[in-house]
């Protein structure tokens, strides 16, 4: 694993970006995450996570189309870098291997 850290919330945002693909812009990310996490999130928290990950090289972004609902302001569409994909799958692997080891452990505990 690389030295660059990916926080827990950042990881969730990153995954959302990946899953939303072409729709991955601030408000949409927020809406999706709110639905999944069943909690309210602020624009600020999403935005700061996005900006931080952009600085760390997990995300790239470009301006998308402007809509009336945004008062004529353009969206910024985020997409994950290959580096981000690699880190994400590494994380997933680490996690699942850990989960696997828990499975054995619980079995072991049952016998005791």
């Amino acid at each position, binding site marked *: 694993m690389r030295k660059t850290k990916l926080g827990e919330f950042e990881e969730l945002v990153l995954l959302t970006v990946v899953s939303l693909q072409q729709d991955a812009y601030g408000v949409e990310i927020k809406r999706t995450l709110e639905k999944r996490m069943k909690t309210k999130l602020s*624009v600020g928290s999403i935005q700061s996570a996005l900006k931080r990950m952009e*600085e760390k090289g997990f995300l790239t972004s470009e301006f998308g189309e402007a809509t009336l609902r945004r008062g004529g302001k353009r969206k910024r569409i985020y997409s994950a870098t290959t580096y981000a994909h690699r880190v994400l799958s590494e994380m997933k692997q680490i996690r699942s291997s850990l989960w696997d080891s828990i499975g054995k452990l619980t079995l072991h505990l049952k016998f005791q």
Partner: protein
Amino acid sequence: MKPDELQPPKWPVRLLRFLLKGKYIEEIEGDMEETFYATAEEESPAAAKRMYYRELLRLLRPILLRNFKSSFHNNSIAMFKNYLAIAWRNLLKKKGYSALNIFGLALGISCCILIFMYVDYERSFDRYHEKGDRIYRVIHGSTEQTEDTYWVWNNAPIGQALKDNFPEIDKVVQFSGRADLLLTNGDITHQEEGVFFMDSTVFDVFSWKLLKGNPKTALSAPFSIVLTESTVKKYFGNEDPLGKSLKGSNSAGRAEGGEYQVTGVMEDVPPNSHFRFNALLSMSTFRKSRPEIFNEWGYADFYTYFLANDQFNLANFESKLPDFIKRVRKDPESKYKIIAEPLSKMYLGTVAQRQPGETGSIANLYIFSVIGLFVLTIAMVNFMNLSTARSMERSKEVGVRKSIGAARSHLVFQFLGESFVIVGFSMLMAVIFVALALPSMNNITGRPMELMHFVTPLNIALLIAVTILIGLIAGSYPSFVLSSFNPVSVLKRSIITNKTGVFLRKGLVVFQFSLSIALIASTIVVAMQMSHILNKQLGFDKEQMLILDYNYDEDVNRKREVLKNELEKLPEVSSVAFSRSVPGSYFPNAWTEIISPEGQMKGMAQPIFQVGMDFINHYDLKLAAGRSYSRDFPSDTIGGLVINEAAARQYGYSNPADIVGKKYSQWGREGEIIGVVKDFNYISLHNTIEPLTLPLEPFACRYVSVKVKSADMTAAIEDVRKVWSQLAPHRPFLYSFLDDDFDRQYQKDFNFRSLFSIFSSLAILIACLGLFGLATYTAELRTKEIGIRKVLGASVNSIVGLLSKEFIILIFVAIIIATPAAWYAMDRWLEGFAYRMTIQFWVFVLAGLAAVLIAALTISFQAIKAARGNPVNSLRSE
């Protein structure tokens, strides 16, 4: 909901744009807006707004925010340092100019500060009363009077009547006229001048603190006395006076003498009060001895103040007054009229006469404020002049700076900065000047002003604001003109003929000298008017007149013949007379009826001087008709009356001889007019001579006037004192000089004259400083020209003339401008005097000559120096 109807709140959006990093603004603002509209649809517009604020707060994260620290370039700080360094070097390089600039400005500013302090102090009168906005007093007049002549001092029953008829009046406090009582504790006897008989409600209305005793009851019982702290010191030293007693002499017409119980000690009345006193006697003392006066509408000896409550409305109150007066006077024809005067107007801006204390003059405050502004303007003009004049010298600097890349705004900033540095220095120096000058200022104005009182946050803020303002104004012209130079022409050394600069400079010199000349002329007029007043023949003998005050003492009045004989035996004394008043002192008014030429009794209130037998001869009053009082006519004591010409005229007799023999009645006396004296100025020359009656009432007398014929006044006083202590040992020997007493009426005018001449001289001094600097500079600029002229054979005289001519012309222009302005202003000022000098034209000639002379002296010093210089020195280096 359509998005164009509902919009995110304005200022948070602006704040957001200000706070966030530029590159994020569009995206985040869009996100916020989208969320906003979504919330508005799902919930409500109000909820959306609340959401917007909440979200805005949550956006405050370091990663999203603009980096404020780095938005200033470090380069600017270096520039600032450079500006300061250059400013400092310029100050040092031209020490003479800098000193002139700073000193002149400091003088101007300190004048302004002193005047501000004085005006502020005068305006602070009576402001310390906590209920001050609800305190009013009654001033009395008549519906018949043509001019507004109101009296504060009047009858007693109005107080109770107001209290009974107006629920909006909470408390009424009345006090008597000033009683000059003799107070005694054992060996210590003083004549107390500031004593009033005062209602017990005084401490409910005014905020004077009673340090000992009960404020509700201290002045309830008869023969109670409340002393101020300094009076306590005078009589009791450090003892506790409470419960002890002071022997008080009788107060004529108010109360008999007696033992006064000290029932309270109060703090001294602050000096910024429109009336002050040393002790208060209970009004019940007065009421007990003369109860009838308190129901007598025609007897004037009271001041009536009241405390209104929240329901009080001045306009509404005054509209009810005419009916109220008719009701309480039980006379629908009553001509009596009262109005209410708020506390804030009592010191400055009262219309009434017969004040319980001194009043200020708002006109004088305006005059001083204007002078203060003049002085400051002159100082600022100096600064602008010297800077514009020096602008040539610095044009190279400007050229270099511009070619390196300085923007014009930078240069404006730099020069303004320099002017701030100078003004800042001046301000510091001015504060020091003020601290040094304050004792003398207090001496002149008689006001105990303290520097520390004026150090308030507001005043400090004001001072800083003024510093900035002066810096801006004084530095504006140099900074804008200098910064506009074209670097190419400046560096090519092509001559910049800055025509506007020269014109402005000349204009400013003219302006400055117009102000100075106007001030010189006004100073001369003020001084002349004052000496006109002091030297005017008043119509009575006021020189070498010693006045002894025994305050109506009955023993002395009984011994008057003996006293007169003994005193007249002294070789130094030529004559002696008794009277109730002397010119310039207090006198009452009495209702006086005299038969008019038409044959009816005609009544009017007349000033009254009760006199002894010899008063008229003693004061050398000239008779216009009839005769004076005489011991040959015993009936004079009962029924004779002498009046002055003005009184005769007022009753309708243009020829004074016609009124002699006519019947009169006054204060219970009846008889015939026996004589008419020529008018004499028994009050200050601010007023014309008013009618006067001089009834012969030896027992109503208060003063002995002693005419001293020897030149040795000290010895004469000593001899008079010896006679006095033999015949009236119980009375302290209180003496004064009539001319001093009379001139004391002009104290305010003297103060005015002193302040006026001081500030005018300062203004002229500052203007000269500026002229000196300017002359020095011009001479320097023309060094080469002078050198060449000298080589070609010009004389020193012609060069001095050349250098001076231009300034002298400006001064003449200033004279032409200043003369009509000063004439008009002084004419207005003189309107305040009934006896005024006529302004002679030579005053302005003199003022102009003085200005020319001063300017010529200032300039010639430099001009001669330049003209005498060796041309070799000035032409050698090129």
